[in-house]
Structures are given as C-alpha cells and as structure tokens.
C-alpha cells in the first residue's frame, strides 16, 4: 500500500508539470498582455515597460516558469496581477466554495441515483424502470444553466424557499446558497451513476452467490443492500471519479449562474485579464484535484473489492 501510494505520487509529478507547462505556454502565446489590460491602451510604452518590470514579466519565459515551479513547491504563488491580493489568499477564499459545492453535488447525485438504480434494476423493463430511465435522460440532456434557471424560477421566485444566488453567510447561509446549484449539478451527474449502477445490479443479480443467498432464505432487502449493491458499486465508483474531474471544469457555468465565488469563475476572469500567476496557480490546483480524485477512486476500489490488491 505504501509503495503503491509513493508510485502514484511519483506518476503525478510529470502529469502536473505537463499540465502547468502547457497552460503556461498557451497563455503566453495568446495575444494580449496584462500590463496593457491593467493600464489601458492609452498608457505610454514607458509605463507599460515599468509595470512589466515590476511584475517580472520582462524576464525570459523559462525563468518565469521556473520561478513559478519554485514558488509552487513552497505553496507561494506570488501576487495576482489584477486583483490587489496574493494568489495564495485568492485560492484560500475560492477553494472551499468549489470543494463544498462539489461535495454537496456528489451527495445529491448519490442520494438520487442509488435508490432509483435499485428500484429500476429490481423492476427491470417494467413501467417504473422506464419512467426512471426517462427521467434520467431528461435531466442529463438538459443544459445545466437551463436547469439551474428553472430551479431558481421554481424555488426562489415562485416558492420563495431559497435565495436565487450568492454564497450566503455562515454555514446555514452557505448551505442555502449551495442547495440549488448542488441540485443542478447533482441532477446532471445522477443519471450517469444511475445507469451504470443499474446495469451493475442487474448483472450481479444473475450471479450464483445471489441464487445461493436466496436459497439460504435471506430476505430480499438484505440480499440487495448487503451483497448485490456492494458488488455492483465498483464500476460506478470509477465513473463517479472520472466525472468529478470533468465536473470541475464544468462548474464555471454553474458558478456564474448562481454567483458563487468559486475557482471556475476565477479562472475565467483571470484568463480574460491575463493574470498569469493566478492562471498558473489555478491550473495547478485543478491538476492536483483531478489526480487526487483519481487516486482516491482507485483506493476506494480496493476497499469495495477485497480481490483488488494495491
């Protein structure tokens, strides 16, 4: 196990270097420079040059990249170019929002998907199964911004139960603010889990050990919950892990619609202003998150299936 973790960590290094290097090269290739954006096109070339010097943007690109790597190793990412704060404190403000949103979204998707998948699999090809699958197709196919707006219309405007947007204050405020976005994301994610899990359960139901359990007179709920579900979860966990990585990038839209101060909206605005240090740090955070989630998925795999040895 220890060696496995070490090996995985070692594998992550080239991945992260690749991601940050690619982001660095691409953003510097794109026309538009931060000093001009910050000072305005009317600033004199001298003023632009002075600011570039202050920002350290007059140095050769390889030097700039190595400085970033050096800083990243000590978790010091320097100052944001456009916002009057350090990149570190920006991340500190924004990571919790996105992490919390992601966590709530995954919880919603599990709460929705697992019972429906079980119900659907047990009533395979009957009306309930068709209804559940149709429902999942609709929420999956609906663009998240549209679903989000529909939820705001229903729950905020008509029922006045939840705020239309914003992160609120305090834990209760955050939870209220995150409810609709988490449901929006959760309803997108749920169908993916539901379908994988449904197939898993159907396959497992046909396995010999299930027949044996039935023959031994175990109750149906016990068979499903204890034996079938656990054996069906393996592939679902993999799918979930992959999708969380994918969702990270998709949160930009949701964060905008619900005015949440998360990582996605920050990434978009920092790209628009060519805020290089912030872009670099965010790319790294996204990279680390995806790598970590994949690792976690594999570890969970081993927990669920004792035959898998790490």
């Amino acid at each position: 196990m220890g060696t496995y973790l070490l090996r995985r960590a070692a594998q992550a290094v080239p991945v992260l270097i690749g991601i940050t290097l690619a982001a660095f090269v691409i953003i510097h290739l794109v026309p538009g420079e931060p000093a001009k954006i910050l000072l305005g096109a009317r600033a004199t070339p001298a003023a632009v040059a002075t600011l570039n010097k202050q920002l350290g943007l007059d140095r050769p690109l390889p030097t700039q990249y190595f400085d970033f790597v050096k800083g990243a190793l000590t978790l010091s990412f320097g100052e944001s170019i456009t916002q009057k704060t350090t990149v570190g404190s920006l991340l500190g403000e924004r990571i919790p929002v996105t992490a919390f949103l992601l966590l709530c979204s995954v919880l919603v998707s599990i709460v929705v998907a697992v019972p429906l998948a079980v119900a659907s699999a047990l009533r395979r090809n009957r009306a309930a199964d068709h209804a559940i699958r149709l429902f999942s197709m609709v929420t999956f196919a609906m663009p998240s911004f549209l679903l989000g707006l529909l939820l705001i219309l229903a729950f905020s405007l008509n029922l006045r139960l939840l705020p239309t947007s914003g992160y609120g204050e305090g834990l209760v405020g955050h939870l209220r603010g995150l409810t609709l976005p988490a449901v929006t994301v959760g309803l997108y994610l749920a169908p993916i889990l539901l379908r994988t899990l449904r197939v898993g359960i159907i396959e497992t139901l046909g396995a010999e050990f299930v027949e044996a359990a039935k023959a031994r007179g175990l109750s149906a709920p016990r068979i499903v919950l204890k034996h079938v579900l656990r054996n069906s979860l393996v592939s679902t966990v993999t799918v979930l892990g992959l999708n969380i990585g994918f969702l990270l990038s998709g949160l930009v839209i949701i964060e905008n619609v619900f005015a949440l101060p998360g990582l996605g909206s920050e990434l978009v605005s920092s790209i628009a202003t060519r805020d290089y240090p912030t872009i670099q740090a965010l790319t790294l955070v996204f990279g680390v998150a995806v790598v970590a989630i994949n690792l976690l998925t594999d570890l969970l795999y081993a927990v669920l299936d004792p035959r898998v040895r790490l």
Partner: protein
Amino acid sequence: MRRSIGVRSASPGRSSHRLLPRIAALPALLLVSALLAACGSSSSSSGSTSSASEAGTPVQGGVLKFARAEDADVGLNPINAPSNGSIFIITQIFDQLVEMGQGSEVEPGLASSWEKSADGLSWTFHLREASFSNGEPVTAEDVKFSIERFANPKINVSYPALGEAIKDVQVVDPHTAIIHLKHVNGALLDDVAMFASSIEPKKVVEKIGDKAFSEHPVGSGPFMLTEYVRGQKTVLARNPHYWRAGQPLLDGVVFEYVPDANTRVLKLRSGETDVAAAIPYNQVASLNGTEGISVEVAKALSWQSIFLNTTKPPLGDVKVRQALNYATPKEEILKTVLYGNAQIANSMIPPLKYWDASVKAYPFDLEKAKTLMSESSGSKGFKLELLIPSGDPVEQQIAEVLKAEWAKIGVNVDIVQREVGALESGWFEGKGGMAATFEGGTLSSDTLSDDEIAGLTLNPEAGLHSLGTYYNNPKVNKLLAEAGSTLSEEQRAKDFAEVQQIAMEDAPAVPLFFTKSVTGVRSNVKDFQTYPIGWWPLRQVWLAK
C-alpha cells in the same frame, strides 16, 4: 474612454468598462444582451424613475441592495482604477472639485465656486466646508496633492492626457487652491470632474500608501466603505461627515456581484435586490410589464460603431466607406436586435456637450451604396474581415445582419470571433482584421465634453491610431487642437460641430447607435437616477417603507 464589456463566457450580459483598461469583467452568461446599450424612446428615459413629488416625502434609513455585473476586485483607489466595477463605487465614496450631473455642464462639488484668470492659465477654486469620512477637513493641501497626482503621468498612467495641461497647484489658504496650467485647456473643468481627479486625503494616502488605500479608501463622498468580500459584495455605509445636509438618505448600500444577467433579473423579480444593473435588451419589455418593477433606460455617453481600418485597401477609399454606411440597415438592427433601446448615431462619437443634432445619419439606401461602390476602387467587390468579440450574441446578430446586407453591394463579410484581449491587442496595432467592434459593442466617455473621445477616435496623435482606424485628416486635427486650446464656448461648439460633419463624411467607421444604460429598479426605490456618464448618484435615493 470606458468600454462596455461583454464578457466572457457563453453569453454576455454586458457590463461596462473603460475602454482601455479593462479588467475583470465578469461573466455573464446566458443572456444577454445588453446592457449598456439601451434604450430608446418609450420606456422611461433618463431622469428619476419616480420623482419625489409623485412619491411622497423622502425618508431616511434603509439599506439599498444593488446587483451589478461587475465586482470591485481591482480596488477603490481613484487613480488608475481600471474598471467600471470599481469606478462606479469610487464615485460614491469620493468627491471631485466639480461634479457631473444630468446636464452637459459640470456643477459645484467640493468647490462651491471658481474663477479663471484672463489668460485662462490660472483657475482658482474656493472650497466649501467639508470633511473626509475620517472626520478630517478637506483642505487646499489635499486638493494640491490629488490634482498634482492626476497631472503626473508617472502616477496617473491610465489617463495621462487628461491631466497633461496642469502645471501645478498653488495653496493660497486652506480653502483656496489655484490650478496653474501649462497651456489653455478648454475642457479643464470637465477633466477635473472625472473620477481620477477625486480629492483624496493627503495624510492618509501618504501614511498607508496607494496599495492599502485602494483597499481602505477614505473620501468625502456620501458613502464610505465598510466591507468588501471579493467576488461577492461591496458594502457601503453613510458617511456621517458628508457635507450635503440631510444626505445621504440611505443608511448604506450593498453592491452585490451577480455576473449572470438572467440571475440579476431573477433577483430583481424575487425582491432579493432593489436595483439590478445591466438588464439585457430582450428583457426590458417584460420587466416593465411586471408589477413593482420599472426599467430605467437612460441616456448614456456611449456609442457603438464598426471601426474600419483605412490603411487596408479598398477601405482607404472614402466611397467604399460611405457605401458601407449607406448599406447598413440601422433601423432594422435597432428594432430586431436592440429591441428599440438605443438611438441611431449621427456622429462618429457619442452625443457629448457639443453634439450637433442636425447632422444627418446615413440613411439605409442600397441604391446609393451600389452607385458609390461602382465608382470606387472596390467596384469588383472584396472580402472584409470583421472582428467581433467572442461569445457576445448581440454583436454576433449585428454582424450577421451586416453580412447579409453588405453582400448585396459586393462586400463579402468574413465574421471572425476573437477573445477580447486578443481582439484589442491586435486591432489597435493594425494587425488582424479590416473592421472591428469592441466587447459589449460600446465605448463610453469619461468626461462631459467632446475633447477626450473626439481626440481618441479621430486624432491619431492621441495614441490609439484613431481607435485603430488610422484615420488622419489634418483639418480635423487642426480643429480639435483649436477647440482644445480656447475658452470660447462659441468657438468650441463651432469647431466640434465642424469635426462632426467632416468625420461623418470621411466615415472612418460605420457608427450604429448611441447606446443607453438599462437598469431595473423596484418601486420601493425612490428618486433613482442614472447619470449620462454611466453611474448612479445614490445620495438622494431613498426607500419607501
């Protein structure tokens, strides 16, 4: 000049930004359309949504909730504030010597009166009794400090041209300051009314420095900053030392950052916010039909244009440029894309102080356009690459209409969407594209008189190659110089009117519309106004119980 920015992401709402320095504009996704531009005619134009007379007696108290498309994420220091997200809040916190209002003339601000010397080189300002929000009095020393910063191109790097004429400031006594000029500046009062020349407390800025000051601003304006939460909100409280007796009426204002235009509209509908800025054109009518909400479509000193690079053949031929103007169905675009919320432009710049309403806009006349084309160097037709900001549905719709119409005169438009930063950096340097329009489609003035925008748009010496058109007409340059260096209002009006006429004939651009500010206001908000310069004076606003 400020620019209204559309914003990144899928579909923009538009928010305004200064033209050049743009910064985080934030995203507004879906909806779109915009804001800034706006409206026309019918709905409530300019002025207050509900005047005091109809609405009862103003009462003190309450906190106004105001949803905006932009965050003040770049700080609140008047010098070099790079985006409207900050500028429109700076103007609530700071005062200037003279102020902009609804009209085209500046009004008394911290200076209750002023006079100029016979040669126009010395302007004496008499300060009223006023205090900063920390209780310290505003003195001539603060004026000297602030105006000399404004005049110093090493400090005021974003707007160096506007303070350029100022030599120094002389403190006569604590209540009198004289601004000495290097040369006559016909627009001096307009220049010292802009946000960058706000009066700052010398002691505080010197003690804490510019960086800290931008996070902890201290001004003499109606409100003061109490809290800023990045990416979420800016909270202001009434300045207890404000000099206008009985104002502000509000206890405070909370500016919430809500980047998505649809979400802003929904917040307004649900009553979670009292005011929502930057309402998309296509939602104006439906909001106006909603009880308890009205949309203020106000005059703005902003305009939308398709700029033509006159160095790229055949756009060097004035007949080709005029033909493009005649072949542009502005009425149709106004109706179908902007839902009537703008005014057709009869000038290359917005309707500023010396705007001549009698100049004719180019009518839509395909026959005339065809004739001009056939006489021009582009008679065989040509391909025109039109750069538009990516992800902005309004710009895209306008570009599609142009493509269809201009094809009829043999101009094959190739619409190229560019990310905003890339579009601008290429366009101003003459690289990429024969024609372009900017993010959010509109640019706006920072001052009330024509000098700033006319210079940037028509005079290559102003540093932006005439906004990338490379237009250069010695006669226009001479008239602009003359207007800028005289104090005779009559002469200035005459010169700018002549410039307007000549520039329309030379057509270095296809001016489309004078755009408007579109703000949704709930009916409990009284005496709300939008100034043509773009922001909302909030000191007189009150909330009905």
